[in-house]
C-alpha cells in the first residue's frame, strides 16, 4: 500500500510559509503605533547622550576639546558619534527583534504548535528578519536626515558607497542574529545574551571613540568583530571623501564575516532545534 502524507512540502509551500510569517510579523509590528515614535526619537536621543557628555568634557572654554583633538586627530565628534551609535543601534535592534523572535513565540506558547506544522522551520526565523530589515532601512534613512538637519552633520561622502557598505554588512549582522536566536531557544536567558553581545560591540568597536585609545589587547579583540569594520566603513563612506579605496579592506572583511556568520547561524539553528526537540524543551519557558 502506498503511504500518502498529509502534506507534501515543496518550494512553493515553504515560500507560502515564509510569506505567512513575514505578513504576521509586519501586522504585529504596525499594530503597536509606538514604533513611529521609536523611529523618529531613537536616532536623536541615543547619540545625544554621548554627544552631550562629549560637550561637557569639552569644557566651557573648549580646553577639553583641544585635548581630544590632540589625542585622536579628529576635528569634530558629532558625526563620528552619530554614525558609531547608529550601527550599534542596528545590531542591538536585530538582537532583540530577530534574536527574540523564537523566544517570544516560546513565551506566548505558540512555538511548539508552530513547530508541529509541516513547514520549513528556518522560515520562522527568516520571516521575522525581513520586516525587521525593512524597518531598519526606514530607521537609517530617518537617522541620516535627522543627523544632517538637527545635529548639522556634514555628510561629505558618497550615498551609494554608504549603501554598498550597509548591504555588505547585512549578512554579518543578521547571521549573528540567527545564531543568537538559536542559542536563546535552549538557553532561554535571552536578556543576558543580548547584554553580553551588545556590550562587547559597545566596548570593543569604538562607537564613541577611536580604537587607538584602547589598550593593545582590546584593539586585537576588536579586529575579530564585524561591527568594527562596519562602523569604520560607514564613517569613511559617509563622512569623508576617501571613496572606495578607503572602504575596500572593510568590504572584504565584511564579506568574509558575512559568509561565516550566516553559516554559523544556520548550523546553530539546526543543531539547537534538534536538541530542543530531543530534550522536550521547545514548549517550555
Amino acid at each position, binding site marked *: 500500500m502506498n503511504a500518502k502524507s498529509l502534506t507534501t512540502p515543496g518550494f512553493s509551500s515553504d515560500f507560502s510559509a515564509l510569506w505567512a510569517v513575514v505578513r504576521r510579523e509586519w501586522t504585529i509590528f504596525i499594530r503597536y503605533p509606538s514604533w513611529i515614535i521609536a523611529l523618529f526619537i531613537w536616532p536623536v536621543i541615543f547619540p545625544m547622550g554621548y554627544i552631550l557628555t562629549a560637550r561637557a568634557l569639552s569644557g566651557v572654554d573648549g580646553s577639553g576639546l583641544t585635548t581630544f583633538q590632540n589625542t585622536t586627530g579628529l576635528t569634530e565628534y558629532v558625526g563620528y558619534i552619530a554614525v558609531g551609535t547608529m550601527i550599534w543601534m542596528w545590531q542591538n535592534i536585530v538582537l532583540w527583534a530577530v534574536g527574540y523572535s523564537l523566544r517570544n513565540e516560546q513565551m506566548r506558547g505558540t512555538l511548539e504548535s508552530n513547530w508541529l506544522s509541516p513547514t520549513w522551520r528556518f522560515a520562522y526565523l527568516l520571516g521575522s528578519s525581513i520586516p525587521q530589515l525593512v524597518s531598519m532601512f526606514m530607521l537609517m534613512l530617518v537617522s541620516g536626515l535627522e543627523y544632517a538637519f538637527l545635529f548639522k552633520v556634514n555628510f561629505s561622502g558618497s550615498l551609494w558607497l554608504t549603501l554598498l557598505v550597509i548591504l555588505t554588512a547585512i549578512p554579518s549582522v543578521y547571521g549573528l542574529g540567527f545564531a543568537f536566536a538559536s542559542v536563546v531557544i535552549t538557553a532561554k536567558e535571552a*536578556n543576558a545574551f543580548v547584554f553580553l553581545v551588545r*556590550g562587547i560591540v559597545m566596548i570593543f568597536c569604538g562607537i*564613541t571613540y577611536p580604537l587607538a585609545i584602547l589598550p593593545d589587547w582590546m584593539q586585537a579583540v576588536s579586529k575579530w568583530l564585524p561591527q568594527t569594520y562596519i562602523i569604520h566603513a560607514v564613517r569613511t563612506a559617509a563622512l569623508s571623501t576617501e571613496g572606495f579605496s578607503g572602504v575596500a579592506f572593510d568590504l572584504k572583511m565584511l564579506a568574509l564575516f558575512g559568509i561565516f556568520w550566516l553559516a554559523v547561524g544556520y548550523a546553530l539553528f539546526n543543531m539547537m532545534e534538534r536538541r530542543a526537540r530531543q530534550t522536550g524543551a521547545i514548549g517550555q519557558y
Partner: protein
Amino acid sequence: MQTQPLSQPTLLSHLRALYALIRKDWKQYWRYPLNAVSSVFQPLIWIAPIYFMGQAFSENGKAIGFSQYSGTTDFMSFILLGTVLESFINAVFWGMGYALKNDMDSGVMESNWLTPIPRLLILIGHSVTNLVVTAVTSIGMLVFGGLIFGFNASGDVLKALLPIIPMMLGLYGFGFAFAAVVMLLREANTLVDVSSFLVQIFSGSNFPVNALPRFLLPVALALPLTYGLDAVRANLIGTKTILPLQWELILLIVFMFVMLWIGTATFRSLERRVRTLGTLGQH
C-alpha cells in the same frame, strides 16, 4: 437575609498578597541566574564607552574641561553615581510599566485584576523585587566600577541618602501614572525605553545639566530628579549644585506629594477607562 462576601479584605490579607507578589517576582527573577548576574555588569558596560571617551578628553586622568561645568575633574565618580541612581529610576519604570505588559502577554492580567486586592498594591508589589535587586546590584556595581574605573567618595553617606527618599517616593507616584498609560496603550517597550532614556539624559546622569544647550536647559530644570541627582553628588563628591542644597531638598519633598497625588488620580481614571473599554485581557 445576611449576605456574606466571598472575601473580606483586611490589612493582613493585603500584606499577604503583597508578599505573594514579591515572592513570585523574586522566584521568577532568580530562575534565570545569568540574567540576574548580567544586571550587575550591564550598567558598567553602558558607561565603558564614556570612560574611554573621557580619556580622550583628559590630561593625566583629569578632565579639566569637565570640571568647568561640574566642579570636579573626577568625571568617572560623577558618572558612576549618576548610573547607580539611574538604576533605581529604571527599576520603577520597568518594574511597574513593563511588569503589567508581562502580565498581559502571559494572560494573567485580567485574572489578577479580579482579585480583591487594591490595584496600586499590585504595582507596588511588582516594583519591590526590582528595587531590592537594584540595591544589591548597585553595591556590586560601585565595587566593580570602583575597581575598574575608580570611585572616590569623600562625603557624608547618610546625608547623601536624605534626598533619595522623597525622590523615590515621588517616582512611585510617577510610576502609577506611567503603568496606567501602558495598560491603555498595551505597549510597554518603546514607552519605557524612550521615557527612561529621556529622563536619564535630562536629569544629568552622565553629565552636568548646565552643559546642555540653553534651549534644552529648562527641560532639565523642570525635572525634580535633576535636583535629586545633583544633591546626592554634592553630598558625596562635592560637585557644584544648581540651587542651594536645602532648596533642592524642599523641591524634592514638594515633588513627592504632588507626584503621589497626580499618579494615583491618573491611575484610577485610566484604569476605569480600560475596564470600561474591556481591553484588560488583550495585549
